[in-house]
């Protein structure tokens, strides 16, 4: 004789082994109520998905985020105050540590700002080498962004693949300046030393092998239905809002606004480089993802051109008041040794005035506003940190999304807390 489910349930309920049908109904109703529960959740500062020490206060209604309050400042080190207490060249290692993922562009912004203030021209070879190193740094930063962003979403494989590529770039940096992460690879007026002879070969080897790796990542992600479901239509910001929030970089271009500092206000040798600027259409996480992936491709193109066009010549300006003389000159000429001493111990003097200069760092427009009152120490150094400003748009982008989508949105903004907090 077959029995219905109801009969079996009632029998088991009679023995106390299952909730009675009435209790079952109450349990199911309570579970539905959770979707209306209002909770304030604290995310961070220690959290694997916030990409650093970022604290977010999230008001939730069930799974939907109703309000986000970012609470940065856990990595605040007083960089702007420190900038008021040392010579211009001495501040360069501090700039490394702000955007520590892309230290070269972090330094480059400061150095270019000081060069603008001083009115100093950098020799051509130095400009091209800076372009190569900056684009390598852009690829390295985007690789780290890619690995961590998709790992947060769940595609864990890609992380170590992108780290493998990043290792090659860090080796190239090590061959140039001895450091992998915090480089101290620039000086005001040019570069401290020329690149080693093996540099061009190593870079060419890297950029020749890179397209295959980019194809690997695209093969894993670009048409992956799970990945697309997680990021399409999430975290949308319109072009108007993006401009009002002061977004820059891929976060702005994902919304379709064609603004890239390398095109708008070219610095170093970018005015001689031919490259495209990828733009999105809808301003969602997917468009920002595509922008950054294509930017890596375009960086390879720029590096190839810069290597081909690189002239020979000096790598440091010949302005004797600014340039620290080379080791050969210092050891053989008394004037050079005197200059070396004076510039190292007393710094070079800048004219009085204030300037703002920005570059296209992988995170967005990184700018420096420097006020000088003459003398060798700046009066005010203000960092226009793209990560800090882009963070301000997180509430706008992620309110109304589910909490799992919030993680995708944070990754798509590509923030580094060293820059947010300075």
């Amino acid at each position, binding site marked *: 004789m077959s029995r219905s489910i109801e009969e079996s349930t009632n029998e088991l309920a009679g023995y106390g082994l299952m909730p009675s049908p009435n209790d079952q109904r109450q349990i199911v109703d309570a579970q539905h109520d959770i979707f209306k529960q209002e909770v304030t959740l604290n995310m961070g500062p220690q959290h694997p998905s916030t990409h650093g020490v970022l604290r977010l206060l999230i008001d939730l209604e069930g799974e939907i985020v109703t309000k986000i309050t970012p*609470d940065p400042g856990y990595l605040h080190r*007083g960089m702007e105050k420190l900038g008021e207490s040392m010579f211009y060249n001495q501040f360069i290692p501090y700039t490394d540590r702000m955007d520590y993922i892309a230290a070269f562009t972090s330094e480059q912004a400061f150095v270019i700002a000081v060069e603008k203030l001083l009115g100093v021209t950098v020799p051509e070879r130095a400009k091209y080498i800076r372009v190569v190193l900056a684009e390598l740094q852009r690829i390295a930063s985007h690789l780290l962004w890619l690995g961590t962003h998709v790992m947060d979403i769940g595609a864990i494989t890609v992380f170590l693949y992108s780290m493998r590529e990043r290792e090659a770039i860090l080796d190239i940096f090590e061959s140039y300046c001895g450091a992998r992460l915090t480089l101290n690879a620039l000086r005001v007026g040019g570069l401290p030393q020329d690149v080693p002879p093996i540099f061009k070969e190593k870079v060419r080897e890297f950029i020749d092998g890179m397209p295959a790796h980019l194809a690997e990542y695209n093969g894993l992600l670009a048409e992956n239905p799970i990945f697309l479901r997680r990021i399409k239509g999430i975290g949308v910001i319109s072009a108007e809002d993006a401009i009002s929030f*002061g977004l820059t970089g891929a976060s702005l271009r994902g919304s379709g606004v064609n603004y890239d500092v390398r095109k708008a206000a070219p610095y170093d040798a970018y005015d001689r480089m031919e490259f495209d600027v990828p733009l999105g259409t809808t301003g969602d996480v997917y468009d920002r993802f595509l922008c950054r992936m294509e930017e890596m491709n375009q960086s390879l193109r720029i590096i190839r051109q810069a290597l081909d066009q690189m002239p020979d010549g000096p790598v440091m300006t010949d302005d004797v008041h600014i340039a620290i003389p080379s080791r050969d000159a210092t050891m053989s000429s008394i004037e050079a040794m005197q200059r070396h001493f004076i510039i190292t111990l007393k710094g070079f003097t800048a004219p009085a005035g204030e300037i703002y200069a920005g570059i296209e760092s992988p995170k967005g427009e990184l700018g420096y506003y420097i006020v000088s009152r003459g003398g060798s120490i700046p009066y005010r150094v203000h960092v226009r940190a793209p990560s800090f400003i882009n963070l301000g748009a997180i509430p706008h982008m992620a309110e109304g999304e589910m909490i799992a989508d919030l993680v995708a949105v944070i990754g798509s903004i590509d923030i580094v807390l060293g820059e947010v907090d300075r």
Partner: protein
Amino acid sequence: MDDKQQEKPGSATADSISQEIEALAVRKLAEKFPGLVEEVIYFRGEITVLIPKDKVIEVCTFLRDDPDLRYNMMKDMTGCDYPEREQRFEVIYQLYSLPYNQHIRVKARVGEDEPMPSVTLLWHAAYFQEKEAYDMLGIKFVGHQGLRRILLPEDWEGYPLRKDYPLEGYH
């Protein structure tokens, strides 16, 4: 930015195209707000305009919305401390026009306990940046929808970027 002219600060030579067009902003400001601009500085191809703080919102709205100027992005906003002045703080806005690719810097001076108008209704970017200026310098922005410390802990005393705050701090 690679145009490194050896200009003296304060000189008004407009020999680059960008200076001519940026001088348009100065001309239009002089037309719309006669006698308001206190100082104009050209230096290294940049233009700085000093205005009184009470007119910040009107001037910035004009710069943002005028069809010939369209400074629609506030790239950066910060403060600076000049303790020897009567109005010790200076609030500096770096504005940028995306359609015309032009920059302008607008400055306004404000004293220690004076209220400073907030531009959060003009640009969303001001929300975080005014918080930081308050946190670091103690400039009080009126009209901000939640002026609290952002980088330092809420119970921090003192404003570190002031010149009378020691580099090593007090603790």
